[in-house]
């Protein structure tokens, strides 16, 4: 029983990342009808926003410290981040420590800008082209973005730790009446899950309860009619693209303490996220979220030692296997709508 709960928990954080990326992908597909292979790159750019903010905050200059001597007896030169001088040492340290959560604020304007630039600059011209062309051009864009990041940040993963307050683990077992240390779960993963839920709820609430969201939903259902009513649906869809980029970026920012970001993390996630979208059903937002969590949890179940003993290697292929089975039995995915992406 405790093992099962542990696996569910383990699956949730990966599932949250899948769900967030898949949500963004589906938003873009549902509104603009574009299959965006560069979405993983947006996730990666978000992660590198966190890296950049950490670097900016730790910008420092050398100061001669008279009170300490190095081994030659000269006054020691120490690197002092500017931020220590501005806010004092304790506050400064805390700010650097909290750079990942702060990067959320930092990344939102950047992701919105990137999203706008992408949609207006490139994707706009591909609405009328076949899906294969859209896949190809965004695939090319993903390569370009990835290489640009690689040029500036190098090919190695850059560790971006979570704030000290969240580095420990949480003992779930005690809470549920099991023995201590049976179900241990890192705090940051819990936070990631909670954060993902908030973002997902935010996006759904935005679509459900605002006039803007209503218009967007109407546009997703029947773009032409909404246009005939005199609403500039294109502009709203552009904004939705920026929001989708933002969601992917935020998922990336918060993921950095779990896995140190490197330039190809986006591609690694993209392939799986596409599988998630297709399993959930093209164009269905709840489907994307559901499938994201489902596949995340399934993946972690499949990596249990007991399961691997029965079917070796299942942890590597479970997601693809599920995708194949679902696509063949439920061609529209779990919650796909009729008439979306059907020839």
């Amino acid at each position, binding site marked *: 029983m405790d093992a099962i709960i542990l696996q569910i928990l383990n699956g949730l954080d990966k599932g949250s990342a899948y769900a967030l990326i898949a949500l963004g992908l589906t938003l873009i597909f549902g509104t603009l009808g574009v*299959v965006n292979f560069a979405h993983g790159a947006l996730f990666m750019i978000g992660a590198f926003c966190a890296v950049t903010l950490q670097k900016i905050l730790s910008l420092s200059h050398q100061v001669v410290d008279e009170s300490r001597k190095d081994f030659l007896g000269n006054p020691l030169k120490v690197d002092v981040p500017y931020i220590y001088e501005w806010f004092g040492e304790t506050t400064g340290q805390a700010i650097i420590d909290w750079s990942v959560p702060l990067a959320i604020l930092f990344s939102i304007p950047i992701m919105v800008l990137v999203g706008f630039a992408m949609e207006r600059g*490139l994707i706009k*011209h591909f609405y009328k*082209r076949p*899906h*294969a*062309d859209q*896949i*190809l*051009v965004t*695939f*090319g*864009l*993903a*390569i*370009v973005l*990835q*290489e*640009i990041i*690689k*040029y500036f940040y190098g090919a190695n993963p850059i560790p971006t730790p979570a704030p000290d307050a969240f580095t420990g683990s949480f003992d779930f077992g005690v809470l549920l009446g099991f023995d201590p240390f049976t179900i241990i779960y890192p705090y940051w993963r819990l936070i990631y899950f909670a954060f993902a839920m908030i973002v997902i709820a935010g996006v759904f609430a935005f679509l459900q309860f605002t006039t803007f969201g209503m218009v967007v939903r109407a546009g997703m259902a029947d773009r032409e009619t909404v246009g005939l009513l005199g609403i500039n649906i294109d502009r709203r869809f552009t904004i939705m693209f920026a929001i989708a980029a933002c969601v992917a970026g935020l998922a990336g920012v918060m993921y950095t303490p779990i896995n140190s970001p490197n330039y190809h993390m986006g*591609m690694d996630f993209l*392939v799986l996220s*596409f*599988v998630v979208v*297709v399993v959930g059903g*093209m164009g269905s937002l709840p489907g994307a979220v559901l499938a994201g969590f489902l596949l995340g949890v399934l993946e972690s179940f499949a990596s249990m030692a007991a399961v691997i003993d029965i079917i*070796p*290697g299942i942890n*590597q*292929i479970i*997601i*693809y*296997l599920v*995708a*194949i089975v679902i*696509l*063949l039995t439920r*061609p529209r995915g779990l919650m796909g709508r009729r008439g979306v*992406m*059907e*020839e």
Partner: protein
Amino acid sequence: MLGLNKKDSTLLLIVAVLALLAPFILNPFPEGSSLAQFNAGYPDLMQRFVIFGIFAIGFNILFGLTGYLSFGHAAFLGVGSYAAIWMMKLLTLNVIPAIVMSIIVAGLFALVVGFVSLRRSGIYFSILTLAFAQMSYALAYSVLTPITGGETGLQLKATDRPLLSNLAEGEIGRASLFGVDMRTSFELAVGDWLWTFNMGYYIAAVVMLIAFYVSMRIFRSPFGMMLRAVKSNQQRMNYTGLNSKPYTLAAFVISGMYAGLAGGLMVAMDTQVGPERMFWTASGEVVLMTILGGAGTLIGPVLGAGLIKYMENIISKINSGILHEWFAFLPDGLEDALVFMVYPFIGKGWHLTLGIVFMLVVIFLPGGLVEGGQRIARLFRKKKADTPSDKDPEHHPKPTPHVAE
């Protein structure tokens, strides 16, 4: 000739001549000159040109004709490679059984994958093929290690005892064709020029020519016509009472066999396999090649494969020292600025160049390099056609009224 019309025969002849004279054509610069690094005429790279050419030709039969975008073709290449190396480990070091085996195994695998994947079309098809390829990659990497060698892959080892080859104790076998080592090379030096004629390359080139000829016949056959019909409007095709599934499945299997052939040839050249050959980026690469060259055209995929492999091997070798050498004639500040601007696109950044070129091609030249060539040719032809037209009234008769007045 060979059941081809005049135009196709000419194309085949041109390709044959280019492939056979490639050691000369790809080594235009004398050894030791500053341009020698642009020489691509060394056996390893030339083999890659033709092998990936075969891979792309096969992919084009599926994508170019039917429009089904497979993102998992590298799996067939990998499976073919594994089949080939096992033939060489167990049966004989002769490459022919290995290559035949790789085609058969890849074809069977493609039959299974295709049978399942082709039940869906569009992006679903792409994801399904991608899922199958990633699954094969993950399995080759982990559970199937006894068969695939896992992360280290498979090589010919001193302990291998192929049934039909007499190897001395402790001798590591080498791929051969009826006793002729694939690595045999003949070097011809004329003045400063050095040309290498490699046995392996010529075998691969001949296979490539055969593959190219077969794809030409497929393109011109009624079967090819059916595949084009699938691309242009599958629904209408179904309404007229034709079942399109056997045609697409056949195309899928044929292109899988081409991929297996390429994999088998790769093993014949370097006698090693690793699972990274099946990773999805490898599938992405063949997509890039085909689109870059021109999907749906005969020669396009070969051009695209050549271009990408050339860039991968030549551009990635340029470093900032070489750039400084090139721009040395400029004033210092300008030289540094220029090197600074060009630097991200060369050396390790060649993928950036590739990505940009690829995006530009998709945006402006959906037909790839071949369409680019055709447009340029048309430009010239138009100029030629324009000038005499004024003096030639016979071909531009004045419109006559339709109804007699």
